[in-house]
């Protein structure tokens, strides 16, 4: 078992230039190089029009498949586009929400979430049709019919306040990670501590995968009262540090002290001392 994807960025092709990466994304190039090129452009935040051109082609390229039949290149292209800026990105991503591959839909939703453009909210609400009862697993697959966690998280981030009553149903969903995603969204939409405390409870779940999920959700939620609980969770320190950094950024954003790191308030000081102790 590995950590949650936090160690893969030190690729061996770190000496690539922007031009090499763009050239290696072209359809004539071998699949694994295109896959890496897509990651590279996202990681280094290359929003040049030629980079976006290549990524938009890759996003829709279903000819390149990994050995298990998955659309790995599409997923990496979507992930990269989520991090970049260009007026074409949001509509291109929205068109891929109907992709037949579950994992592509999941990554596309996450990319739309990071684009922070509320125009996709109606598309996301459509995924919740039928409510929590319709959110069942597919026989023989390790996932539900739709990527509900991603949908709920995105709706919270995008401040889709009208949909809070529907999200509440998902607090009772049998899958713990779906419950956590619902709690995270509801805290972001309502700022009610009861939802933050649901996430804190998740930090004490018996399964490590659930605790990891709760860490990430709590960090993203901005529920500051969960900070000490994050630090005390039985999980890898890398994840706890990331969750605390997310809380720190959320706090800066909320308190409007974003531009004054020289004079931190008591909350920021507390977050920093928790982080120091986890290094």
């Amino acid at each position, binding site marked *: *078992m*590995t*950590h949650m994807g*936090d*160690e893969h*960025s*030190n690729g061996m092709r770190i000496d690539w230039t922007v031009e090499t990466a763009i050239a290696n994304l072209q359809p004539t190039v071998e699949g694994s190089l295109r896959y890496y090129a897509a990651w590279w452009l996202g990681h280094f935040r290359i929003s040049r029009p030629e980079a976006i051109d290549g990524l938009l082609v890759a996003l829709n390229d279903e000819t390149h498949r990994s050995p298990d039949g998955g659309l790995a290149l599409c997923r990496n292209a979507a992930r990269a586009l989520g991090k970049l800026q260009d007026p074409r990105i949001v509509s291109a991503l929205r068109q891929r929400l109907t992709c037949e591959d579950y994992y592509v839909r999941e990554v596309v939703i996450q990319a739309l979430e990071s684009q922070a453009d509320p125009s996709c909210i109606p598309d996301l609400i459509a995924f919740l049709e039928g409510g929590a009862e319709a959110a069942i697993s597919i026989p023989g697959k390790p996932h539900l019919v739709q990527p509900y966690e991603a949908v709920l998280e995105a709706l919270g981030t995008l401040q889709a306040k009208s949909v809070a009553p529907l999200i509440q149903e998902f607090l009772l969903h049998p899958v713990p990670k779906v419950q956590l995603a619902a709690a995270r969204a509801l805290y972001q939409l309502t700022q009610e501590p009861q939802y933050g405390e649901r996430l804190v409870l998740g930090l004490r779940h*018996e399964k*490590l995968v659930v605790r990891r999920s709760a860490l990430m959700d709590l960090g993203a939620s901005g529920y500051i009262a969960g900070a000490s609980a994050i630090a005390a969770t*039985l*999980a*890898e*320190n*890398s994840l706890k*540090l*990331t969750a605390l*950094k997310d809380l*720190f*950024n959320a706090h*800066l954003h909320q308190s409007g002290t*974003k531009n004054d*790191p*020289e004079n*931190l308030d008591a909350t*920021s000081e507390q*977050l*920093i001392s928790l*982080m*120091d102790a986890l*290094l």
Partner: protein
Amino acid sequence: MSTTLDLYPLYQAIDNAGSAEDMRRAVVKLCEHRAEASVLKLIEVLGYNNPGAAIAAVDGLIAIGRPAVDLLLDNIDSFDYGARAWANRALAGIGDPRALPNLLDAALNDFALSVRRVATKGLGNLQWDWLDTVEWPTAQEQVLQALTQAGKDEEWVVRYAAVVALENFGSQIETNREAVLASLQTCLATEVESVVCARIHKALKTLKAL
């Protein structure tokens, strides 16, 4: 001092633990003895992919302290980066300068960011009194160079660790304080993460007040 015989049932309790939490409790029990003889077993626990048990084992190794250092250095796991991170965390916590070559290499060259992070932190936590003063200038120059470089790591958490380590190093050794302040200013000039910027300001403030 506990003998190996006393510890055997405690080893068995770890090996036979039915759940991750039972294992963590068994490791805590073993650590209560602070037995040098248990060092190898504790190092083994670092590779079990059980973060709770590993945290307990790291605390146990740090409590045993210097007698654990040679075995830690001899048993650094080159295949499992999780275990390697925990082992470096134990070495960082103990602070024995015998681990300096290992910490320098891990901080700058390990592919796993968690290993670079803990080793970087450890470079700021060395117990200089345990090293012959004749060796101080060379060793301290190496630490300063390495921390300055780690302050430019591509991962924010390694840069954060470098700032904390620079603060500790600059607080410990007065003769290096000016160089540390300059290094922190260099970090500040290019830093993009708010939390790292905030940490740099805090370190500058702390060091200037000394």
